[in-house]
């Protein structure tokens, strides 16, 4: 049907050529119209290329745009904008020349018609499918159990050895537990987000201090108030400076329930995020989740504490241990959700308060400074020396809990992390 020579003319002056080309370009434009057009009248009756047409069956459609819309219905249903249809049509090879076949000036106006004719009312958006939550992976599940196991081994070693080997076992055990704790917190649900710029060292230092206080602090305070200490602790429960091993062992084992409950919390939050319509909805549904997670962890810690206390035949100190445990959990939860500032401040403040309590007791021995020991003395007389830890850690935990109910219920705290690197 086409005589290609009429499209490109290779003789004559430039101007004449281009003019001629322009005129034949018009002809080119009308040609597909004649071939596939919907009405016979569109065809010029004396068109020179008529003989060829008889061989191809003509498609007749009442509404060519409708056919086009049917062909690109995915694109039309998806589009939020006429330009999106225009871009998609162009990617499928539709040009302005093609658009002319549909009686449109260009692709844009064709796309506008398609966008306008797409039925839009009455359809309800399909609720998004909940994302498949990843199964808990074996590596971090096992890693969370590792510190507890190492700590238990150390305690057993302490019971079995005497004298110098005992000290070696204690030091080696402490180091091993520290390394295991660090590894357990570096991956899994308790790991900080990759884009967190965490001032990690400060928080880590103060966490070590808090654990050390839980181990040694009560005994030191008691002996100090009684006028001691006369020597370093030897690790036996009946010594003048006793070690509180059961709470620390329980806390180290509590890594595992902390990680699991955090995992459950994160997974449920993600599900709520997909399901909720508004930010208020989301906050309202996350708050009970957070409190449940917190309560679950406390129950697990209490159970562990009871177990370790009975096994080691130590008195069960629930209040200080639970306070410290909740403080550490909340600090970690906030840190993993990119709120690093508040946990760092609270951990620092708590540790400083404990150090101050100890310092005042020793400072009161200086002549004329008796008054300094009065608050701690009164506290110890009323509720026992363990109340210092209960009070400091409890206050910190409460503040962090209030902070967490405000911040962790925000949707922005649970925004998916960026993966593009």
């Amino acid at each position, binding site marked *: 049907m086409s005589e*290609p020579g009429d499209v490109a003319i*290779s003789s004559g002056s430039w101007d004449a050529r*281009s003019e001629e080309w322009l005129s034949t370009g018009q002809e080119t434009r009308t040609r597909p119209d004649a071939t596939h057009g919907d009405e016979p009248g569109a065809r010029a009756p004396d068109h020179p290329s008529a003989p060829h047409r008889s061989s191809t069956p003509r498609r007749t459609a009442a509404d060519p745009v409708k056919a086009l819309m049917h062909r690109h219905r995915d694109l039309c249903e998806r589009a939020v904008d*006429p330009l999106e249809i225009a*871009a*998609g049509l162009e990617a499928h090879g539709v040009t302005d020349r093609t658009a002319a076949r549909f009686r449109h000036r260009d692709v844009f106006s064709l796309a506008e018609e398609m966008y306008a004719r797409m039925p839009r009312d009455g359809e309800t958006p399909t609720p998004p499918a909940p994302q498949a939550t990843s199964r808990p992976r074996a590596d971090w599940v096992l890693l969370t159990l590792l510190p507890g196991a190492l700590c238990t081994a150390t305690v057993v070693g302490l019971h079995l050895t005497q004298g110098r080997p005992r000290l070696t076992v204690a030091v080696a055990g402490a180091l091993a537990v520290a390394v295991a704790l660090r590894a357990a917190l570096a991956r899994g649900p308790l790991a900080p987000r990759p884009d967190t710029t965490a001032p990690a060292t400060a928080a880590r230092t103060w966490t070590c201090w808090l654990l050390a206080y839980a181990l040694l602090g009560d005994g030191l305070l008691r002996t100090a108030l009684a006028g001691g200490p006369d020597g370093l602790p030897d690790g036996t429960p009946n010594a003048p400076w006793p070690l509180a091993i059961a709470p620390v062992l329980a806390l180290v084992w509590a890594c595992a329930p902390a990680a699991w409950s955090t995992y459950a919390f994160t997974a449920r939050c993600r599900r709520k995020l997909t399901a909720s319509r508004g930010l208020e909805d989301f906050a309202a549904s996350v708050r009970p989740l957070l409190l449940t997670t917190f309560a679950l962890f406390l129950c697990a810690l209490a159970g562990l504490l009871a177990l370790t206390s009975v096994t080691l035949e130590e008195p069960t100190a629930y209040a200080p241990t639970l306070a410290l445990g909740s403080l550490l959990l909340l600090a970690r939860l906030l840190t993993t959700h990119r709120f690093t500032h508040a946990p760092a401040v609270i951990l620092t403040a708590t540790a400083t308060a404990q150090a101050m309590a100890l310092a005042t007791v020793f400072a009161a021995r200086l002549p004329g400074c008796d008054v300094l020991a009065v608050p701690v003395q009164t506290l110890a007389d009323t509720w026992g020396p363990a109340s210092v830890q209960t009070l400091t850690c409890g206050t910190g935990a409460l503040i962090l809990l209030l902070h967490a109910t405000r911040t962790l219920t925000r949707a922005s*705290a649970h925004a*998916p992390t960026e993966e593009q690197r």
Partner: protein
Amino acid sequence: MDNRPSRHRPVRIRSSRCEPSGQRRLSIREIGGALVRIGLLTEGGYPYVSGDARLWCDRLVRGLEQHEFDIYALSRSERQEDEGWIPLPPQVSRVRTAPLWMAEDTGVVYGRRARRRFAECYGELATVLCSGSGMDASGSSEEPSTSEADRFASTLYGLAELARDEGGLVGALRSEAAVRALERACRAPGAPRTAREARVPDLLTVAAHLESALRPLSLDWYEDDGLGAVDLCHATSGGAAALPGLLAQHFCGVPLLVTEYGVRLRTHYLTATESSPAVRALLTAFHGRLAAEAYGRASIVTPGNAHARRWQERCGADRDKLRTVYPGMDASRFADVGESPECVDPHTLVWVGRVEPAKDLVSLLHAFAEIRKEEPKTRLRIIGAPAGAEGKAYLQHCGALAAQLFPDEADGPHAVGDNPVSFEEIGGPELPTLADAYAAGAVTVLSSVVEGFPINLVEAMLCGRATVSTDVGAVVEVIGGTGLVVPPRNPRALAEACVALLRDTERRERLGAAARARALELFTVEQNITAFHGIYLEIVSRTPVRRVVLDGTGEPLPFASPAEAHVPGGWTGQGLRVVARGGPGWAVGPPVRATAPTAVTKGAS
């Protein structure tokens, strides 16, 4: 040769040189002679080894060695940064880079006032985005669209000023306040249906995307010693690369030139198909408005072809600002082939390109079957590597089809035959270079159904080959009248055009020569560089950066920079302190001409 001075715009720099008219046409180095300091803005582009369009930028920078280039590059990924830069010529005086793929949360905590300012700006931005992309209402309601565009601009610059005052925006853009503002805007009464359906994850996605898109606002480039010191900003693509240019114009009054070889907005439409309708609606609105703002503020916008130009016009670019600058190709590679048309095998058709389904080789094979009926001695050489797994499968399919359509044939009863259709790749012993590929045939065929700017066609033109192409993309624009064009998906028309050329040697040669002449005129590197050189000088002369010169006590010095300051050559007033005119928001419009144009034309004559 249409060099009538009356039709020229009054360009101060060029016309202030009063040579005799015989010396007017100097080489590129001499014209104007003005030293322009250009801030080249790239995104995932030029100085990086794996950057887009780095070849073009490299040629541009090397071609304009009389000017000074400051490169401000946004990198797209960590891998791109690790791969390093290409060697830079000495006219690049500084390179500053910033990552777009990560944001350093500087830990800036806003005070109450800054928080309120941010909430206002961001809320306004969200409202504008929820009021649609601004491109649906074409013609009918110009007024509201204009005011929406102004609101978008004011929120954008408001956020930029906030970032400059407070030292960063990243934390705030990620904060709950941002998500809340988005939610409020989406639930507002006038919001469109798609926006109203936004769920919490959608809001988070939009907030994250906006945060990454607005990262250039937090950069420290917009100081007097940064982008404030350049004479013009040249954004090598739309989108993120144009954003620093917009801010430089806002803060320092530096004119902006936007070059787009592919329209970024269109790329956004084609790539962002995965997310939910609400996310797409809001982000599309953002990118659309950003594009419109860039086109609106730019002094000149240079699309790479008519297709990009149509999109830019559609997105609100003023027609007066658009100058099509075709991409330049290195013509020297094809010079030998192009200038020796006699060594042509008259019975061979060549197809060159990357093998993929959009090239419609099936249609080409069917057309070749028709050609063989008319001209039995013809051969077809399909030269090119497959693109990806899909391309490989398609190549296999085409090979099978060719084997079915055309039996092997030999010259005589005792010769070993082979198939008239051969599939080859460049780099083998027969075809060591690209130019050899085009030289292998008398006619080059292009059978694509989808095409952007057909580089293969330009290469064929530079080789002086007659071409038959399908009418897709920018083909007609490129070929002009120097080759045959047939409708796509029409093997018979393709076959007839090929036969016509194969039979007519003289016409083939004429068309080939014309094609080569056209390509040499329009699609060479030199024309590209010359065009940009002219545009630079035009921008600098029409919208010069007006810097306020301060005296020793910090008072502005009136008449401190007289008209001679813009004349080429040394200017003595160097020691004075110069600050860019940041100014209040209302003073952001295009700078007023320093001197009346009448004086300029008088000086030229």
